[in-house]
């Protein structure tokens, strides 16, 4: 049962699962997302899970807010419904050409770059959501001592494949796009594949990510 459903405009339900960002709340969002997706209800045009919200867009020709709200809020999820978790390993090169913000991160965190990278690579990360641009995963959580804010002035162009951190999160820029995260490296792996129509995303909500470090030579080898 989803308790708190508001409207976002006149053609979307705004399901609020809480104000905090943690894996328990997010897992609940993701479970409902997969459950509703599987029901394949007529007139639902999009589902957007995020840290603690699920937005359900619908066709106004088919549903009104109140009728759809009633349908959605009564959907139950069985207690034993476990989230399917895939472990995905992603290579990252932290060569100076790629680690665009390593100096800034050193200064802000007051840690040496080698320590920062060691801490970064020592942890597995949980995928909270994907989006903003196609396939971009929002991952967490970074250790307490690794957390810092975004760049004061966002970059107009962040190179494709950049791996960045901000607050408790890290992400991968699947396309060249504007952005303000602190860039620690770059992956040669394609995270979003337009030609794969059935499953274009390498990383999906609920997955676990293990980053591993590669040399520039290995990077170029994979790129080739």
């Amino acid at each position, binding site marked *: 049962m989803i308790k708190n459903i508001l409207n*976002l405009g006149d053609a979307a339900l705004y399901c609020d699962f809480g104000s905090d960002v943690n894996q328990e709340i997010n897992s609940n969002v993701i479970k409902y997302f997969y459950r509703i997706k599987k029901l394949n209800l007529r007139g639902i045009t999009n589902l*957007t899970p995020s840290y603690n919200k699920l937005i359900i867009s619908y066709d106004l*020709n088919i549903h009104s807010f109140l009728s759809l709200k009633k349908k959605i809020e009564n959907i139950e999820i069985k207690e034993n419904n476990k989230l399917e978790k895939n472990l995905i390993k992603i290579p990252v090169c932290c060569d100076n050409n790629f680690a665009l913000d390593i100096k800034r991160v050193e200064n802000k965190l007051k840690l040496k770059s080698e320590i920062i990278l060691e801490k970064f690579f020592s942890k597995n990360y949980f995928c909270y959501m*994907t989006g903003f*641009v196609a396939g971009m995963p929002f991952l967490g959580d970074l250790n307490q001592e690794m957390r810092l804010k975004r760049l004061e002035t966002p970059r107009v162009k962040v190179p494709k494949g950049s791996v960045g951190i901000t607050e408790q999160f890290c992400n991968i820029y699947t396309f060249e796009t504007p952005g303000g995260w602190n860039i620690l490296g770059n992956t040669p792996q394609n995270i979003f594949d337009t030609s794969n129509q059935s499953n274009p995303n390498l990383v999906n909500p609920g997955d676990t990510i293990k980053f591993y470090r590669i040399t520039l030579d290995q990077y170029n080898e994979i790129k080739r």
Partner: protein
Amino acid sequence: MKSKDRNYFKILRAGINTTYQDLGRNNLYHIGIPFSGAMDKRNFQLLNSLLQNDYNSPVIEFAYQGPHLKYFGKDIFFCISGNVSFKIITKEGVIDGNSYQCYLLKNGDEVDIHSTNKSVYGYFSINGTFGVDYYWGSCSINTQAQIGPNNGNKFSKDLEIEIIDINNSFNKRKLDYLGSTIENIRVIKGTNYDYFSESSQNKFFKESFKITKLSDRMGMRLEGPKIENIVDPNIKSEGLVKGVIQITSAGDPIIMLSDHGTIGGYPKIATVISADYDRLVQLTPGSNIKFKDVSLEDAETLYKLYQMETNNLISQIK
């Protein structure tokens, strides 16, 4: 295909942001892909109805200035929707065309789409089908994510537009329609409405905002009175829908349009109602707009009325 059997347009001038569009792609927000699709759905619907095409047939969308096209092949009809100035260049001479009216093209004829008038988007199509590839069930080009035919890019000079099917039983049709404009954009208050000071809430509905040049298929940036945030300039990133009005850290509104990023972290002050979206996107940079608050129930009714009006226009095509 032998060249004598081909029916195609050659692009002599691409125009601005010229792309294929249809109704767009659904159920991909969760991986970061927006709806896309024709910005002005009414003009999209009217064009396919005028040409007796399938309701979701691909059309060519352009902004401000359209393409200049030269036709090669057997006789075909074309039509343009929106408020558009264009010329038809044939061996007999040059004539000015009217929107919402079908014209015959013969081998070697040209259509030169000069501009949209006091509006942004116009649409061009034929009594038949363009040869396009489909991505997730849609041929809409999303240039930001490079998804769609033409490698997800807008049209360029010398590109050839293939026509794979012509409807031979077509009868020339027209519609007398002058278009529909709007002064106030009606909105529903947003999920973060209480993030803003009372005086800013009042300003949002009382004063006018100017549409800036930083507007495209992804979003429309506005300038006007600064909207003061008294809670937090950011929220935990969450899903967006088209029509959402976010307030940036600088206090300026930005309206999400059809190719918008699927997730955003700015507070939402309001959302444009579905009934006003087609007319919102046609407002040109420099225009001033005012927002008017309506209830959810009114918005639902207004959308039904808008759709009835569109269906009424379609029934007037003859």
